[in-house]
């Protein structure tokens, strides 16, 4: 394994890149449970973490993994876990706890086919909505989705940055093909990518409120054992962290969870586009599917069809305004997903009136190839 701090060009797998990105971000705790197709991330972290003075623990299940990374993050270490469908489902309650208690952490979901045990070794993109709405209750979510091995590295760093910056769990949504795909990448040098760490309090402990509503809504965070003794609970709580049933406090808490993210929409949204300026038909896809979509768009251009590509890298919050802008002149938008239609409904919600929404879905465990998408472009253009 190459060191994370060299600029060497190396052949790397998406899952390995994820692990290297985590180390680069300063992640020093990993709690996990083996599950296909994500296991290489845990294996990589088990190997690398102790060398960097970090700590790895294999937990008894995904519920415990999620709990352990929240505990470790509360104690001050940047923390991560990695899993796939069934494990991601098990983690949901504790992910909700992390939203509620505003503990930064990163969850990697290398998507496979579902529901239930589904297709452990095959690709799917059917956890798109779960990544936004998994835990019960109201909150806001940040989810990023890479589409190449280099992006697996970069977006893991981004996921940590978002989680530390906004004191919130962040999901990185990969997929089986991306996780196991090998590409030659240039490993970012130290300092090349921005690495953000949580803001620490600079007030005496008696003034410290763990959930203080600051002007930008994100509260500085002391670690357990730093000398700021605070209470953390999944019960709805006031700014000190103590349980409350006061109507005004309840609303204030939920507003904080929602607006601390939506207010920074422009900072969080990442979107990649190609040839949308004059496009009469835009293809919208993310992750591995977007790679085929890009190829299909180029095939269409060769046939003088004005096609363009919209690839959301930040899936949630959904890039409403950015996507709407790119659809300003398009007559059609074709949403391509490896599920029965999830993001397509988001696109329907925001598409301008003149732009008809079409969809192409596959959910048999196989990837959509460029020709499939190209044919669909010809059919609906």
């Amino acid at each position, binding site marked *: 394994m190459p060191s994370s701090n060299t600029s060497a060009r190396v052949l790397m797998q998406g899952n390995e890149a994820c692990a290297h990105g985590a180390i680069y971000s300063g992640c020093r705790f990993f709690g996990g449970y083996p599950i296909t197709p994500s296991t290489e991330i845990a294996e990589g972290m088990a190997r690398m973490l102790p060398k960097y003075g970090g700590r790895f623990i294999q937990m008894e299940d995904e519920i415990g993994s999620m709990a352990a990374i929240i505990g*470790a993050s509360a104690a001050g270490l940047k923390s991560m876990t990695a899993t796939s469908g069934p494990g991601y489902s098990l983690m949901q309650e504790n992910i909700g706890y992390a939203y509620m208690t505003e503990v930064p952490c990163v969850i990697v979901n290398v998507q496979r086919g579902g529901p239930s045990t589904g297709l452990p070794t095959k690709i799917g993109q059917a956890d798109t909505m779960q990544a936004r709405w998994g835990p019960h209750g109201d909150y806001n979510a940040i989810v990023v989705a890479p589409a190449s091995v280099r992006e697996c590295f970069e977006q893991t760093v981004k996921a940590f940055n978002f989680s530390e910056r906004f004191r919130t769990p962040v999901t990185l949504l990969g997929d089986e093909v991306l996780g196991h795909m090998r590409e030659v990448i240039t490993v970012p040098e130290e300092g090349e990518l921005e690495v953000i760490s949580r803001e620490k309090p600079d007030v005496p402990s008696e003034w410290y409120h763990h959930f203080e509503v600051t002007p930008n809504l994100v509260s500085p965070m002391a670690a357990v054992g730093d000398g700021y003794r605070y209470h953390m609970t999944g019960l709805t709580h006031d700014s000190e962290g103590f349980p409350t049933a006061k109507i005004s406090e309840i609303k204030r808490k939920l507003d904080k969870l929602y607006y601390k993210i939506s207010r920074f929409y422009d900072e969080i949204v990442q979107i990649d586009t190609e040839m949308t300026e004059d496009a009469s038909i835009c293809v919208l896809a993310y992750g591995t599917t977007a790679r085929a979509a890009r190829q299909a768009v180029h095939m269409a251009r060769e046939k003088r069809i004005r096609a363009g590509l919209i690839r959301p890298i930040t899936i949630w919050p959904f890039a409403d305004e950015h996507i709407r802008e790119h659809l300003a002149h398009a007559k059609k938008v074709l949403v391509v997903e490896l599920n029965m239609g999830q993001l397509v409904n988001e696109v329907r919600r925001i598409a301008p009136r003149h732009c008809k929404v079409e969809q192409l879905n596959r959910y048999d465990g196989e990837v959509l190839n460029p020709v499939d998408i190209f044919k669909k472009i010809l059919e609906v253009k």
Partner: protein
Amino acid sequence: MVEATKPEDKQTSDVTHQYLRTKKNFPNVWCPGCGIGTVMGSIIRSIDKLGYKKNEVVLVSGIGCSSRLPVYCDFNTLHTTHGRSIAFASGVKVAKPNLKVIVVTGDGDCLAIGGNHFIHACRRNIDLTVILINNQIYGMTGGQCSPATPNLAYATTAPYGNLEHNFIPVDLAKGAGASYIARSTVYHVQQMDKMIVGALQKKGFSLVEAISNCHTYYGRLNKEGDAVAMLKWMKEHAMSAKVAKNLPPEKLEGKFLTGLLWDVEKPEFCEEYEKLIQRLQK
């Protein structure tokens, strides 16, 4: 900051009050006569006796009556999800091994929904102290059957008597690999103090089972009387393990053992991990 030691002549309440979050959170949620407050006092006295600083103590709990305990105490306190307190605590401990991490849990929280985390933390021999407050029933949700409810006992979800059998938590912990196991009751307060002090000092996974009373549900549904009657039952049925060693089996009929039940030395997870880091970084 609290001084390391206290003069012996101080009132017990003077000691405990220094560790309580008196400004907020009181009155507490527990029914009058509940044993959980007694366990809280015992935990606080033990920490005080060992001279731990408030900043280095972490209380972690799950969900239930007993899991409400940390909020009243002026330590680092984490009130987490149902059954998962030991997993959360493991994360805290592995991240910062210098902290004294104590898990406060109940029989439902620890043995039913949290059973998996409990046995695996025992097996891992991670340096946590688990205080399992066993009142044999789910109190907060209103008297349902728990994995500690005895066979044939009544609960709102066992209206015709419990058809299942109860766990013996101390045996479970022993089988799973814990390194320190003790049991006491909310009647035997001084013994409980001693057991918790011993557990806190132990390097490795330690369990103190604190037998407590839920007269509101368990006592009422099983006609065991009020808090006083249930404490009396503990007084009459508890037998010190030290004393029991020298008694014939017929004298132990209907009794349960208290005191230190198991104490072995074995490598502790965080220390071993630290050694691994040192080795790899050389």
